[in-house]
């Protein structure tokens, strides 16, 4: 019951989903639509696990008084406020939207914008032409950067006697050519990996998603 049933379910749903892809027959199409519906219905319940685990983690932090445990109350506070305003009326609630627009959005947007600083610092400190490979990465990155910045074309057209918009043309060439082919190589390899993983999962060879235990 603990391992076999999940393995059988996984096999059945997997093999059905795979085979219906090859048959345009209405029964097969109906089956496909039904399985997709099941996926849509079951999926949202996974939320339960996330919430339980989060609450559990912070309850333990408070109980054990780990460093900065006081901040855990803020997590509960934020969660409760959002749920209190959003749950009864749905997401089209004024306070809920206000909190999202003026608290959640600026915080997340700002957190991400920290990346601008980090990328500059990483460029300065870690971006070294140590080896041939690193040099290539560096040169390609610099060309693409100058091609992306509108000032690149402006400066080139002002200063250089030959050609128009060479920086953006060079950028486009790198993207269209060496970049494209290396990405394609990666896509081919990774896709074989994805398919092989899926085959292993369906046939119950890969079971790590079940976790350990019996």
């Amino acid at each position, binding site marked *: 019951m603990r391992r076999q049933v999940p393995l059988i379910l996984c096999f059945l749903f997997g093999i059905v989903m795979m085979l219906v892809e090859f048959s345009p027959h209405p029964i097969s199409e109906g089956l496909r639509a039904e399985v997709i519906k099941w996926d849509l219905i079951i999926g949202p319940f996974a939320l339960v696990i996330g919430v339980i685990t989060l609450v559990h983690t912070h309850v333990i932090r408070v109980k054990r008084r780990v460093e900065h445990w006081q901040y855990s109350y803020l997590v509960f506070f934020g969660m409760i406020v959002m749920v209190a305003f959003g749950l009864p009326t749905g997401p089209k609630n004024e306070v809920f939207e206000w909190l999202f627009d*003026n608290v959640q959005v600026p915080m997340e947007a700002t957190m*991400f*914008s*920290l990346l601008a600083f980090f990328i500059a610092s990483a460029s300065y400190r870690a971006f070294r032409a140590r080896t041939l*490979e690193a040099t290539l990465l560096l040169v390609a990155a610099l060309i693409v950067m100058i091609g992306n910045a509108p000032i690149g074309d402006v400066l080139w057209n002002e200063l250089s006697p030959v050609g128009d918009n060479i920086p953006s043309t060079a950028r486009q060439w790198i993207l269209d050519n060496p970049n494209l082919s290396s990405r394609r190589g990666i*896509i*081919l390899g990774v896709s074989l990996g994805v398919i092989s993983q899926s085959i292993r999962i*369906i046939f119950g060879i890969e079971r790590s998603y*079940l976790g350990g235990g019996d």
Partner: protein
Amino acid sequence: MEVLGIWVAAFFTLCIYSFLYRDNPFYRFAEHLFVGLSVGYGIVFSIHQGLIPFAWDPFWEAITKREFMGLLKLIPIFIGLLFFARVVPKYSWLIRYPIAILIGIGAGRAIPNVMDARIFRQVYGTLTPFGQIHAGALGFFEIFGAILMLVGVICTLTYFFFSIEHRGAVGGISKVGIIFLMVGFGSAFGNTVMGRVSLLIQRVDFLLSDWLRLI
């Protein structure tokens, strides 16, 4: 409310930026509040735009219409409810049922579609320029591009062969593969710089124009 909103947003923006100096209580305050809010937001959406339309509505319909066969719709709902077994340690293994179904569906639909979209169509894309070369439809520069693409795809693919030692010819080809990979990663780095800086520009624009009204 709008002015208050701008000030609140500016306050939290600055709280997060204080991290650039170092980790501090303002940052931690914002970080934890953010975690809470985002989880709360996620709960509301999962319930209102996920559980209610997908599970509750059909469930209610099945109950009120009193159709026996309609009750079959309750099976996936029941399977979904097994996620709650996580609360009871003794039965927490029951969550494997819904997980197994979700994973099985994902794996099953991936196989044919990935084979088609990401293998067949990509190989096809690699071959088509050579048909055009045969037809004489390409100029010198495009022919050069097509050959370079072929070399790039083959060498990159060779780099990812794991069951042969990379010595001799194979080693050489895979070295060329690394060259292509690095140029590709370099272009990603260049584009990412642009992406990240855009985020900063937007925040600075918010602080300078919406909050401080300097522009």
